[in-house]
């Protein structure tokens, strides 16, 4: 079995599936920083010069949904009817199709009696009852009020989440995840400006949800990073950067899956929101989530983990450790075969298990007949003996 497989390197997809990829995320991090930097700078320019398309909630006004499934009147006819009734038509669009087809017409702020008049006029034009026209009226301050609350929520959320990550993981990770978050927000918002998607309170809420999701994604990666690096300083096999790179590679498939599984329902939502309803909460939420989740997946792999490395390498402890590793390697003469390295990696992986923060589960529950001979797993030497066996075998195939 082993001989046959050494000849043929599995394809990238297959490697991905097995979590055996060895992309150099960390080594190439400056390229990713640069790429993100350029994108952000470009989007910043767009944001400054192009601005945003603000929805009715920010400008104030009235939105009418006129059912248009069985009317001969065109959108323009209905708009003209509204104009004639004294409304200042902002935008008009056709939403949905078939039975759900309707004209969405937005007009500026109106007095309440005017609003009724406009509604009646449009109903007459479209040949439907005034009762079948949905009206949504928003004051100019509503959008601002929602945004203000959202901003407060954002700040509270950031504080809580930073505290959580700090306590649960470490300070560096808290900083890096906040950085990744800022990156996600700026890019998402920038894309909104670039494409000219309309910003509504739902968008802002969606944006807040992305924060949660982005952090969620990042946490999955950090979790593995923490595992892989918990015992790092005690060994001399790997630098911190290498350990993190391994972690990112090992969780790569998980990250990709997480993102795909997250995006799939959002895509369904977007499809339905745009295809069936045309406008409204569903579309706004789904769109911002769709954009944000993809950006979030990128940042958790390409930015958050590398930032942790950058931050870590500034500390004296890790610099010393890097030197030690270098010396050890130089002294070890033996060429650093990836296989051997990986084996050591596995080794550590095992030692660490009992030290991981939440490993409070009675070990017996693990039901590890193989291991029981070596009794308490805290004996690193014992497990060390058995594990490399497997790992090497695997890698050498």
């Amino acid at each position, binding site marked *: 079995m082993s001989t046959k497989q050494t000849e043929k390197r599995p*394809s990238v*997809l*297959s490697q991905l*599936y*097995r*979590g055996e990829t060895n992309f150099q995320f960390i080594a190439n991090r400056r390229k990713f920083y640069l790429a993100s930097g350029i994108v952000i700078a470009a989007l910043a320019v767009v944001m400054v010069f192009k601005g945003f398309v603000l929805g009715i909630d920010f400008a104030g006004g009235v939105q009418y949904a006129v059912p248009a499934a069985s009317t001969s009147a065109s959108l323009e006819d209905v708009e003209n009817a509204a104009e004639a009734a004294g409304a200042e038509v902002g935008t008009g669009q056709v939403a949905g199709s078939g039975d759900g087809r*309707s004209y969405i017409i937005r007009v500026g702020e109106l007095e309440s009696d005017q609003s*009724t008049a406009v509604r009646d006029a449009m109903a007459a034009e479209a040949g439907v009852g005034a009762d079948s026209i*949905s009206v*949504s*009226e*928003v*004051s100019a*301050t*509503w959008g601002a*009020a*929602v945004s203000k*609350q959202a901003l407060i*929520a954002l700040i509270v*959320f950031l504080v*809580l*989440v930073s505290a*959580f990550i700090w306590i*649960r993981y470490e300070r560096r990770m808290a900083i890096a995840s906040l950085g990744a978050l800022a990156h996600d927000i700026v890019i998402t918002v920038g894309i909104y400006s670039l494409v000219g998607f309309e910003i509504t309170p739902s968008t802002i*809420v969606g944006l*807040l*949800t992305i924060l*949660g999701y982005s*952090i*969620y994604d990042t*946490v*999955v990666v950090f*979790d593995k990073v923490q595992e892989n690096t918990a015992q790092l300083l005690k060994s001399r096999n790997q630098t911190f950067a290498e350990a993190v790179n391994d972690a990112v590679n090992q*969780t790569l498939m998980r990250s990709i*899956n997480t993102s795909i*599984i997250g*995006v*799939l*329902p*959002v895509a*369904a*939502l977007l*499809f*339905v929101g745009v295809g*069936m*309803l045309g406008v409204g*909460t569903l579309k706004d939420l*789904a769109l911002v989530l769709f954009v944000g989740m993809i950006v979030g997946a990128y940042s958790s792999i390409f930015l958050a983990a590398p930032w942790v490395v950058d931050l870590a390498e500034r500390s004296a402890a890790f610099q010393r450790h890097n030197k030690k590793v270098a010396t050890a390697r130089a002294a070890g003469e033996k060429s650093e075969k990836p296989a051997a390295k990986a084996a050591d990696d*596995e080794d550590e992986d095992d030692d660490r298990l009992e030290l*991981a923060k939440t490993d409070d589960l009675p070990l017996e*529950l*693990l*039901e*590890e*007949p*193989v291991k*029981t001979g070596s009794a308490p797993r805290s004996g690193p030497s014992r497990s060390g003996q058995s594990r490399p*066996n*497997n790992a090497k075998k*695997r890698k050498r195939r």
Partner: protein
Amino acid sequence: MCEPTPSGPPSRRAGARYRLRGPHCARPCPSSEEETEPLASVTGADRPRKKIQRKRLAVAPYFTALLAVLAVLWLSALAGSGWKFPTAKLGLDLQGGLSMTLTAYQQGTDEPPSAETMEQARQIIENRVNSTGVSEPEVFVEGSENIVVNVAGDDIDEEALRDVGAPAELRFRIVTNSTMDTSALEEALAEETPTDEPTDTASETPTEESSETATDDASADPTEETTTEDASGSGQAPTTDEDVTIDDVWAKVGADAAATAQALTAAPADEATMALLEPFGELTPEEVSLLPANVQFFVPQITCEQLDNRPPGAVQQADIEVVACSAPEPYSADDPDLTVSYKYLLQPATVLGSDVTQADVGTDQANPNMFVVNVQFSTSGAENWGALTAENVGSQVAIVLDNEVVSAPTINEASTNSTQISGDFTADEANQLADQLNFGSLPTTFVVETINEVTATLGVDQLKAGMIAMMLGLILVFLYSMIYYRLMGFVVLGSLIVATAVLYPAIALLGSQVGLTLTLAGVAGFVVSIGITADSFIVYFERIKEEMAGGRSARSAIPRAWVRARRTILSANAISMISAVVLYILAIGPVRAFAFSLGISTIVDVMIVFLFTHPIAEWLSRGRVLNSQALSGLHTKTAPATGDAAAKG
């Protein structure tokens, strides 16, 4: 919460089961064979093994717990819905109806009103909504300063509902001066100028305060004293968000006009002054509200239209002088389009709406065709009212509601604990006034922020769209996990189905018990959370895969993977939970429903992973399925061809 203590009869039984199945399981997995061998050589002869085996996870308690949770939820949901199939309470955007958000408009401060104030306001608004005759309105406080009114159905009088947030801050104020505002008339007549300057009406008692500084009405140069005296008047100005100050307004009209206006003690008659005061006609209602009362009153260019549109509560402050207009009334009987209003300069109020205990409509005994409103005062109110009427017999007392003088009857005699307001009320007007008095004054003023009216048809469409999105999301996620995890895809599907089975009665129960409504945003939240829920399984399965890649059999990999995956899942869900809770507590608008869905899904997700996914994986690992490469989708140590196929899928 869900870790069973590894002791007691269930685990012993499990141990027995293990002995039966153990060998059976090791055989069919070809991949595990080679690594069990060397490993077994380390531990092979170990007898303590048996002891460990007994500690293996007993899955039965988990499933029992899950079934218990399901049973309790469904039973209570059924009970809650009167033993019919429980249905979730649909929001207005899914069933049609009107939803209105009112925001408290606090004068002069950015502080949100206190919780008690809001609750009091909510009750008053609820009463008013009920009085408009709609069925089962729902009125609740959202956030710190919003009150949401939800009314289901299509048949809604939007106009009437709009007014439920009106302050109805009733004030009884003695009229010190009044004048006719003919601006509406002028507008209507358009071409011809009004016959003469505003004519004074009935009571022309000049105000004591402003007459003190009486100078000639034509005097163009103001004295400084007037400005100082006016300071009290400008105190009434509610600070609006635009941060316009009185100085800005003076600057806008020009220094000369400002000076002239402040010096006025009667309406100006000469052309020059009129021309000078012209800029006052251009002021916005907000700016007008900042002006001192005597300027508002005496400058004829300030129309009742401007005064009526001042921000809510502009004349609410009781202890200052204010200006208010009466409702427009026909100028002459033959042309109802020509209307005039009366502009009143009013004294500080000593009797307030809260002094009123009861009001009802009656007819005038002397004249049965005239409607009157009988008002009862509280003990303290009666004292104030008595003092007010005793001092001002013969004067007019204006009943000021919102920014408008509802009625300005003349005080015929002193009265104390009850009084009768007579005027030119129609039956409706009298009823309205009585209602507003009865339902009390809102402790703060409200403005309508949003009105959302959704027709039943659109509601159904939106509900359908939401359901389709949910089904589509579930199918996509299931297909993906089927392709990727093969058999384990069914575990994902099973978990999602169980999650739905838990969520549905929970929502129905919350709907019937605490009035939780399922809105479109909420549905969106559930759709989004499908991904987050399924993701917990991904984390777990990837972890199992990793363990199995390390050479373990499914049987041994699964518990190990669980220990590690569990902390990742808990951390990640904690983040989701934080974001949901923060959004729910702090955000306003439809967001909260979205946050609520996310939050409840996260809780259910954790429950499902602990009570269903993990035990089922554990249980499956004892059979042969998961150890079969072709089925489990967890093996990575397969021949490259299979691996590729799996990965491509």
